[in-house]
């Protein structure tokens, strides 16, 4: 058994009992990277030297009894979280050579937990995309079918976990950027409640929607990762000083007597029949596990994509205003005055999708349009949030599809932004409402592509979310396949 294929909890047991070492695990991961990275391209930057230093330190710590649940575990980081001393590009030309002088809070927590960093994973530029095709550093391929996209924007983190190029990974989710690639790559991916995990050091796309979360090979690992990253951070005033329970305690609890809601608005025309079948089977599993399934309504769901594509680009247009070539990052040498320097640096530094969204956002915010777009969208957002509040009065959790289709072909939607935006139709509302959501593998299509099912719970109910995800995973007994690359 290759160590790189194992889970955090399996490796932790082996490390504790002296059956293996972090150096051996790290060697196994880099051997795998060497074998498949050319085909998959999960990483923008590999940090092999750093990883082995960390692994050696982790082994020393384990020997002296100072190990924790993540000590010695290779965790890949989406290239959107700042890492002191390691370049952080956000998938963009404009940050190609940006080496942050500081660590993001999640990275600091992982360092303190003794984790090992194999590298920074590929992503859509500034997390804008659903296929990892807008990265300045080239595309990532789906390990299950190299002609397909891995999803996005955290496609590199999802593919790295699926292809065993790391043990677990970190991503960020603004409108589905963790859950959608997790579903398309057949791994577990969770977006926590807005405010549950510090965003300090996460390069902002849309500050009121962004949230950091884990990718893992199973639900138990997801809980272990959440234990490491959740919690209030004074450096992020939107993080919430709510108590963080031990999430692993929820895993074995079961869901007998739970009520699980199925939003009728999510079962629309256009869902791929194989995806629909897989999700319906998942509903059956949940029922078999002792829960009652009821139909619920989220009446404003039809507006979520429209609302999202006003709010997210609006916030992005001001968050990305700082990339002006003055202090760091790419600066065009050709401008003859300040205004030209700005224009040429930004024109050459940003890709098409980023520029498209900056323009949408700037337009939505411009005087004369602000009330019609941004303000109206904020009002509808409040209604969407209320939909969920109403729903969670009737049920403990919601079950829904993650994506309308399995992984699609590379290049298939690049010329049709609207089709690309609709990939996130089932994931966006969770960000707009700020609630947590998780994607868990629920089967395969006939052609062997993974499909995911999504669970949602109320604000700060990550414990319940992991409880139903673990119960589902246990009862579903989905065959554990490995992608052949």
């Amino acid at each position, binding site marked *: 058994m290759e160590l790189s294929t194992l889970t955090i909890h399996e490796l932790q047991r082996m490390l504790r009992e002296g059956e293996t070492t972090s150096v051996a695990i790290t060697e196994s991961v880099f051997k795998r990277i060497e074998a498949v990275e050319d085909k998959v391209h999960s990483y923008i930057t590999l940090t092999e030297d750093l990883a082995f230093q960390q692994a050696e330190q982790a082994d020393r710590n384990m020997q002296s009894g100072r190990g924790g649940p993540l000590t010695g575990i290779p965790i890949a980081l989406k290239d959107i979280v700042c890492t002191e001393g390691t370049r952080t590009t956000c998938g963009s030309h404009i*940050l190609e050579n940006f080496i942050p002088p*500081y660590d993001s809070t999640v990275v600091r927590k992982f360092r303190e937990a003794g984790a090992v960093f194999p590298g920074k994973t590929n992503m859509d530029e500034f997390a804008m995309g659903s296929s990892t095709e807008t990265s300045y550093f080239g595309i990532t391929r789906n390990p299950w079918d190299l002609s397909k996209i891995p999803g996005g924007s955290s496609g590199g983190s999802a593919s790295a976990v699926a292809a065993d190029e790391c043990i677990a990974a970190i991503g960020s989710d603004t409108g589905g950027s963790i859950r959608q690639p997790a579903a398309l790559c057949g791994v577990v991916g969770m977006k926590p409640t807005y405010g549950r995990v510090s965003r*300090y050091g996460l390069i*902002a796309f*849309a500050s009121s929607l962004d949230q950091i979360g884990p990718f893992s090979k199973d639900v138990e690992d997801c809980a272990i990762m959440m234990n490491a990253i959740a919690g209030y951070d004074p450096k992020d005033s939107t993080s919430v000083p709510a108590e963080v329970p031990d999430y692993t305690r929820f895993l074995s609890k079961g869901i007998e007597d739970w009520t699980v809601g199925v939003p009728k608005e999510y079962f629309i025309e256009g869902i791929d029949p194989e995806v629909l079948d897989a999700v319906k089977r998942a509903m059956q599993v949940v029922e078999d596990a002792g829960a009652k399934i009821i139909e619920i309504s989220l009446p404003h769901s039809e507006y979520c994509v429209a609302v999202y594509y006003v709010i997210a680009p609006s916030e992005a247009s001001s968050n990305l*205003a*700082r990339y002006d070539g003055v202090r760091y990052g790419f600066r065009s040498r050709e401008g003859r005055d300040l205004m030209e320097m700005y224009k040429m640096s930004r024109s050459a530094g940003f890709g098409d999708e980023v520029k498209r969204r900056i323009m949408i956002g700037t337009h939505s*915010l411009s005087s004369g349009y602000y009330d019609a777009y941004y303000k109206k969208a*904020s009002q509808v957002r409040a209604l969407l949030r209320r939909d969920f509040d109403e729903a969670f009065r009737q049920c403990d959790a919601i079950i829904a599809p993650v994506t309308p289709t399995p992984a699609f072909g590379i290049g298939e939607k690049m010329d049709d932004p609207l089709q690309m935006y609709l990939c996130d139709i089932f994931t966006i509302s969770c960000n707009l409402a700020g609630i947590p959501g998780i994607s868990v593998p629920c089967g395969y299509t006939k052609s062997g592509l993974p499909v995911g099912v999504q669970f949602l719970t109320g604000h700060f109910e990550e414990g319940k979310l992991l409880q139903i995800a673990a119960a589902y995973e246990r009862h579903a007994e989905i065959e554990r396949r490995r992608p052949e690359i």
Partner: protein
Amino acid sequence: MDYEAVIGLEIHIQLNSDTKMFCNCPNRPGDEPNKNTCPVCLWFPGAIPQFSGEVLEKAALAALALNCEIQDHTAFDQKVYYYPDLPKGYQLSQFHKPLAKNGWIEINDDEGRPKRIGIRQVHMEEDVARLVHETEGKTPISLVDFNRAGTPLIEIVSEPDIRNSHEAMEYIKVLRSQIRYVGSAECSMEQGTMRVDANISIRPRGSDHFNTKVEVKNMNSIHNVGAAITYEISRQAERLNAGESIVLHTRLWDPDRNVTVAMRGKFEGPCVPDPSVPPIIVSHEWLSDIRSRLPEMPSGKSERFIRQYGLTRDEAVLMSSERDLSEYFEAVAGDAVTPRTAYQWIMTQLNPLLKDYRQTISETVVTPKRLASLLAMLESDVLNAKSAREVLSKLFESDQTPEAIVEQYGFRQVSDSDELEGLVEQVLSDNPQAIDDFKAGNEKALGFLIGQGMRASQGKANPKLMKDMITRKLQE
């Protein structure tokens, strides 16, 4: 035509908090360039602002000093524009939900009558970086100093209640005094911690219509604000009289030529709610705590000074105009020193020396306790005024007590008639001519003899006793 001006002032004041507004960097813009910076105030990717509670308190105190209503729910907006002094492409300011509204302060108009000037709102915003352009040499370069970036400002927007230069200058002075009182800011136009922009329009007297306004910037003293307003009013009147119309634009005051000149229009971007700083919800408890920290304000204090110390209105207003000064005054005026003596010595003796020694009233080595001891000796005839002035000078140079200085230098006044007896005899026998003059009815001769007596005592004789003794001898 007889015109009346309609003037509103927008005043930016730099708060004197310890830290910047959204990070823990020191609020010291004058330090070595770019020393006080961090990922947040340089707005590196991933940085998140952390709004300072201290800044909120200072801003709220200032707003309360201007009789404003603190709003329950306030929030930051992003004011978008591109310039190298703004590291993130937008300035965090308050537009939709300002900190405070509906305030006022009272001034005296040009005929001395009290007049209220309304304050529309007080809001918080961050300052920008400082640009330095080095144009000498082969390649001109522009440098950015981010020490000032992210330091806290409040902007105070008046209602258009001001009618002339006098009122504008009075408004600034009263506002400055109020804000210094609560300790939120230094408010120095000369040092740039207070910046005043004026919106000026004119209309036929008697009209209640608001005409197109012109914004005037770049006045770096209260005097210049007055001069710029006077100039701008007559400039606009000339234009209107010539049949031209006034267009909305910004002008800069040129202090060398004493004129305002049109400035190129700048791009004004959108102003949208900021999602990274959570809205500020002000609780009743918090507000009453801040309110309880408000000191006695100048107008109440000057009334009390009139009642309690018997100062005239002008004296009381002067003594209460600055909090440090008023506290100094109260610490000196007490059982042993009459308020009038305290007032006069602070104004006529201490103040000039403070200027000479470049000390402030709050930090001077001549503490209220030391001055009070000195003045107590003066009032109990231990020393005379001339000696007291000399002791005061020495207090700036030495850390001895006034009593010790009096002893060391022998300033003690001679009030013992036995001691003065011989001296008086000597003076009279040395100046027979003056005695004759006095007896012939020349009153001035008395003064001359007293002067001679004082000189013979090396200035230490009690002048009153000296006068009495000489007068008595002359009448014998």
